[in-house]
């Protein structure tokens, strides 16, 4: 953590689905521009954490605040406006819209043109549309999607769709970016590219990144801190080195060795 500053502060977060404690006592403090990995076996509650952070689920206990603003009681779009953006485990793009329009939808929060100005096509509308177009193209440039800007999002190859989802999340101008299995279905060279992209995004947009991932090369390579979840509880946190040697983590992943 750099100089003890906290951007995102999650305390004692927990949720109970009709008796099933999916997550309990989840504590994490994320510093600005930190890259945190969230790993754990299937069903450990990783995506649940993301759904709680974005208020898709309402936590049964605990609190989340970003830069001191409590996000409890906010709607999902309210959380997005407060500065938490996410991608999805199974890609959720606006498939029948062009690539650039996908990004422009996410820019919506930063656009101010009222319904009245829009309908009458006042000069403010034209000015803002031009700015949105430029801004969207700039953002697409970051992950090399500019060439596809006017294609339908659904027609992009898989890897490009994953990248577009990240660009769309960035377009909401977040402070924290949540990536849910960004490397799923990617080959090693695409994963390597993704790793450099994740660092690039952090450095360029000054966001903190929390990522869920099963690809250990990516997690160990890019994360500064790793949190390991199992059965809804944090079983370890620490640097990649510490996590790799942690016996509890090894046990959770590989099971206990007999006779020891």
């Amino acid at each position, binding site marked *: 953590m750099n100089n003890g500053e906290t951007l995102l502060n999650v305390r004692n977060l927990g949720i109970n689905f009709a008796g099933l404690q999916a997550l309990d006592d989840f504590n994490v403090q994320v510093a600005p521009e930190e890259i945190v990995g969230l790993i754990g076996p299937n069903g450990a509650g990783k995506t649940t954490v993301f759904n709680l952070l974005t208020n*898709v689920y309402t936590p049964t206990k605990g609190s989340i605040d970003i830069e001191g603003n409590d996000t409890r009681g906010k709607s999902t779009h309210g959380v*997005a406006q407060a500065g938490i953006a996410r991608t999805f485990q199974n890609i*959720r*793009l*606006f498939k029948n*819209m062009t690539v650039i329009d996908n990004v422009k939808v996410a820019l919506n929060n930063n656009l101010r*043109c009222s319904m009245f100005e*829009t*309908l009458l096509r006042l000069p403010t*509308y034209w000015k803002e549309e031009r700015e949105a177009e430029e801004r969207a193209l700039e953002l697409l440039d970051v992950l090399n999607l500019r060439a596809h800007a006017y294609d339908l999002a659904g027609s992009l190859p898989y890897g490009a769709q994953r990248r577009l989802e990240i660009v769309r999340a960035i377009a909401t101008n977040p402070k924290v970016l949540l990536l849910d299995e960004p490397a799923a279905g990617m080959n090693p060279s695409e994963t390597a590219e993704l790793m450099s992209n994740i660092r690039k995004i952090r450095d360029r947009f000054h966001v903190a990144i929390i990522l869920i991932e099963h690809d250990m090369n990516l997690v160990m390579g890019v994360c500064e801190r790793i949190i390991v979840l199992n059965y809804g509880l944090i079983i370890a946190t620490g640097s990649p080195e510490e996590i790799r040697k942690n016996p509890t983590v090894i046990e959770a992943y590989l099971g206990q060795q007999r006779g020891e």
Partner: protein
Amino acid sequence: MKPTRLIDKTWFRYIINTIAVLLAFGLLVLLTGPTGEGGLLNKYMSQIFIPMGINIILAVSLNLTAGFLGQLPLGHAGFMSVGAYAAALFSIHTDFPKAISFPLSLIVGGIVAAIFGILIGLPALRLKGDYLAIITLGFGEIIRVIILNIPKITGGAYGLKGIPKDTTVISTFVCVVITLFLIHALIKSRHGRAIISIREDEIASEASGIPTTYYKVTTFSFSAFFAGIAGGLYAHFIGVLDPAEFGFMRSVEILVMVVLGGMGSIIGSVVAAGALTVLPEVLRGFSEYRMVVYSLLLIVVMVFKPSGLFGRYDFSLCGAASDIAKAIKKLTHRNKLGIHEEAGK
């Protein structure tokens, strides 16, 4: 890269579109005559343009919720009836001069329908898909039954009589043009993108910071507003309002136009609404078989083009012009290549 267009200057596109609208207007006046009489067509044939225009407004406004927002309401006739009665009552109970009273009554009809749109939209839009269809169907029927049961205001089952017959072909045309412009302007804006993103993926839309409930209700009331305008035109066209006119079948009729034209295609709704209004008249020659022919046509289109005649195609005059220009270029280019090949031999 950005698709290159023949005409890229926005202001120039606007001029071309304005000229096209004026040409269409001129043609209409030529056909029907400046007062609805004395044109190339007889009075009976001129009159068909009014229901045609009303149906276009209804279909395009329904397409906004069904095609662009991706929610399927079945109570569009309900909003039309609210607008029709509000506009008619305004005309009957006020004595402004006709030039003010008629347009004002249409706006009143639209606004009252929009208010109903918000009132119904707030609870109804919490539901999705089939549930939304059924609840809006219910609301449409409730509106009709209420109108039927307050005879002191609405005339009840006897109908509301004595509405000035102010709707002309020209005023309908003006309303159609304004509706098309406003709905197009809405779709091609940040608000429109937000609306379409809800159709595409509501969860992703919400996660991208779009207040989905706000946009759903706004779109719903926007759509109701234009249905109300269409209702006002209808009231001043027929002169007598009968609640039975605004039943469930009327809503389905409008929906058929939207589906046939293509959900999410404005030009599709315009063409389908126009064609389906004229078709029953054209088919009068087949006398009792005409509804069979009508239904068969619908089935044929749905079998061979399930996404509707136009799918999601969006028509723009300049876009079409550049497409044609490109096609011609391609053709001439191919010819040139052919010549080179021969020269090579």
